[in-house]
């Protein structure tokens, strides 16, 4: 049981780099040749006989239409359940058994922006090759069997109905609807939208989005550059290089200034705790103000126990077990969000403390002492962000996905170091404003 809730610390998706005190050099990211229109990158780490591979596909939930919300996720997940390989049809049992027999891990997850296939395998060539062959079949020719679709739709429906009874899920769904406005990520799957999805839709979606020019491959582990190129070619040999144009997504519009009555939603809910969240649209990862916001948010609500929100809400008043704030900067859209949970009769007070802490930070910015402490933590703590293959893979993949410079890891601490007080204050005032914050309060009505 963790004492301290490790809050989804801010821009963590970001990379770190750095410094300094160690003789260990930062491992370089090597760019591999384009293949089938896909970009590919490698970091060689030789200490363990294993390799981690990630394929990011620009095929996230944001391409769902509202009436078929859940389609992108379903298209990704069902790739596990049947594919045509060079040797013939592989059913779901054969795929699962092959993964297990290889001692490999292989899974697909779908988020708002992208679908991600991750493979972890021993680096020995015969095992690695089999893992790549299997992944290649799943990526290029999933079968999308109608019977399996029916089963998975039923499971997803059951899970959706269950999620309606869970405070955090109901809160999250309502918050997304508020903060994303006309952008497709405002939609969440419903029983009805799931029912609308047919096997044809999955085929269609896969054909349109799962192609080389929408893919990025990141590799970390015990392989040479030539072996890595072989892996990329093996993975993508059967995917098409391109396809029909993908319709442009709607503009991601800044959260408007609104009176409180229009920004705040209250959801009566029979739970012991009230769940409260607030937030608004913010920045992309590529934004030049990324670093001032990263450092500033560490101080506000990203720095665990030493953050202002934790100090005001938990340490001084004992109002909540967890309280956090973070920026989630994506490739094309990003938001800021803060949240907490507290027993129902304290909800009003807790919301007040959270709001005034954030408002004061936007108005006044941090103190010089806070700024120095934040920078010290981020810079000194850099090595912890890249000290194993899994973390390196996260970094490489984020750099690739967000089109960041390949030396991002090497200059990261310098960019943190360069942040000053005025930049933090100016950036918070530029992107955040209390009269634009969407607020959702879920819980029993209190007097």
């Amino acid at each position, binding site marked *: *049981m963790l*004492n*301290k809730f*490790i809050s989804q610390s801010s821009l963590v998706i970001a990379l770190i780099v750095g410094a300094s*005190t*160690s003789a260990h050099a930062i491992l370089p990211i090597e760019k591999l040749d384009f293949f089938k229109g896909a970009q590919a990158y490698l970091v060689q780490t030789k*200490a*363990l*006989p*294993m390799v981690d591979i990630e394929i990011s596909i620009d095929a996230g939930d944001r391409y769902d239409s509202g009436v078929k919300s859940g389609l992108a996720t379903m298209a990704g997940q069902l790739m596990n359940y049947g594919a045509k390989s060079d040797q013939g049809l592989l059913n*779901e*049992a054969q795929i*699962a058994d092959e*993964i*297990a*027999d290889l*001692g*490999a891990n292989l899974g697909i997850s779908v988020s708002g922006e992208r679908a991600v296939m991750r493979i*972890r395998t*021993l680096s020995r*060539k015969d*095992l690695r090759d089999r893992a790549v062959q299997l992944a290649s079949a799943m990526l290029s020719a999933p079968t999308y069997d109608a019977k399996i679709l029916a*089963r998975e739709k039923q*499971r997803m*429906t*059951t899970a959706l*109905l*269950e999620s*309606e*009874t869970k*405070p955090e899920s*109901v809160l999250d769904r309502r918050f997304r609807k508020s903060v994303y406005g006309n952008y497709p990520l405002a939609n969440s799957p*419903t*029983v*009805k939208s799931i029912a609308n999805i047919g096997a044809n839709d999955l085929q269609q979606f896969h054909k349109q989005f799962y192609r080389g020019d929408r893919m990025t491959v990141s590799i970390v582990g015990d392989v040479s550059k030539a072996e890595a190129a072989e892996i990329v070619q093996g993975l993508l040999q059967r995917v098409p290089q391109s396809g029909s144009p993908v319709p442009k997504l709607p503009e991601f519009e800044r959260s408007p200034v609104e009176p409180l009555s229009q920004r705040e939603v209250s959801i*009566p*809910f*029979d739970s*012991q*705790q009230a769940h409260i969240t607030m937030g608004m649209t913010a920045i992309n990862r590529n934004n030049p103000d990324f670093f001032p916001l990263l450092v500033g948010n560490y101080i506000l609500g990203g720095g665990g*126990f*030493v953050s202002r929100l934790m100090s005001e809400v938990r*340490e001084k008043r*004992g*109002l*909540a*077990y967890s309280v956090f704030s973070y920026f989630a900067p994506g490739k094309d859209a990003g938001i800021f969000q803060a949240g907490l*949970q*507290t*027993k129902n009769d304290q909800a009003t007070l807790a919301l007040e403390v959270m709001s005034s802490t954030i408002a004061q930070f936007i108005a006044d910015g941090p103190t010089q002492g806070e700024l120095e*402490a934040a920078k010290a*933590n981020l810079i*000194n*703590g850099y*090595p*912890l962000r*890249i*000290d*194993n293959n*899994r973390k390196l893979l996260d970094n490489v993949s984020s750099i690739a996905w967000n089109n960041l410079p390949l030396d991002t890891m090497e200059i990261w601490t310098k960019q943190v170091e360069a942040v000053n007080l005025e930049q933090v204050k100016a950036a918070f005032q530029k992107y955040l404003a209390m009269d634009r914050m969407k607020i959702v309060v879920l819980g029993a009505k209190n007097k």
Partner: protein
Amino acid sequence: MRSTLFSFSLYLVLSCSAAFAAPEVGQANTHEFQLSNGLKLIVREDHRAPTVAHMVWYRAGSIDEVNGKTGVAHVLEHMMFKGTHKVKSGEFSRLVAAVGGRENAFTSRDYTAYFQQVEKSKLDEVMRLEADRMSNLNFDDAEFLKEIQVVMEERRLRTEDNPSSLLDEALTATAYMSSPYRYPVVGWMNDLVNMKAIDARDWYRSWYKPNNATVVIAGDVDPQVILRAVEKYYGVASARELPERKPQIEPMQKGTKRVQVKAPADSAQLAMAWKVPKLEVGRLDDNEPYALELLSAVLDGYDNARLNRILVKEERVVNDVGVGYDMISRGPELFFISSSMAKGKTVEQAESSIRKALKEVVDKGILESELKRVKVRILSDQIYKRDSIFGQAMEIGSTEMAGFSWKDIDVMLEKMQTITPAQVQAVAKKYLVDEGLTIAVLDPQARQSGESKQGGNRDAK
């Protein structure tokens, strides 16, 4: 010794011709020391990156609690951040943050542990802080009164508003009649309401002694340098006699127990738990715990494992299913299967499907190929596990707390590879019987929500 055997068995299991070199790890890279005050130190060298995980493990968890004061081990864990004679409340975290560290703590049934992860040159700094609070904790009553509110919020968040946790809590409290494993680690709410600062202080005075602690350090370190630092910082604490631990042996169960929990949810859930043996210290040759571990993997160790294949994919009677068994622990063990119902299916149907799948194992045994598959997983995980310095320290610490040595980990893995299908069949037959079974059912209640009425999500029902 270990790497040789290890690479040999992986070679055997994967049965392939290409040469395979197991990574160098194991006994040569791990060092154990004992200070004169009884503190044990274990250092795992891993020079892949310039970072280090520093942990102190106290052998005091909820298994050491008594009724009326449940949750006190976890409450004290919270209070450990509330200051010492030299470091005032909140400073601990601030100082760790200043050196770029990550820190946290966790309490389980068997132990309470604290950790920091830092760049290697900052190790001394966090060690000094951690050693200080081993002996000099000093919090005031006002801090306690605020923090106990935080712990109650934690319980509301994790348990009171979470039907799966409520079910798990009821299952455990029903399965165990006498063992303190029946208490939730976070404590009963009423015990938290009535807890006093003195209860936490007593707990600290009783159990937080060097002779009840193990320091585990993993990462880019030199063991001799580490030993000197640990002697300097932790060596000043003095050993003291620990309170007597009563055995509190769980009486033999004599028939099926059932419990029902009504809580807001949409689907019913079913959890079945059998009393089974665990691995006993000094008896590493006992086949049964390994066979039970492998049984759980054959039932639930990969996507096409038996229960998922039969219950979720073929019969579609449950939405998901999971199996749990942990062969090492201080207290008695359960082998449990939990599941949530598929739409329109009843817990009776799920129970009957689970029983049928288990009977299949009991009557016909398992395939050599199934067993081989889950053994490969165990071996490859040994390599993947070394990707994380933190994970290595966790494994060493939790093994030590259960009373075993970190050296036993390799012995256990080797033993696991020798288990046969017949031995797996035998434990299923011997232990998954009604006499030792507890069944818990979550009976879902409608949750009052303003959202679902307007959400339109229920129109398919």
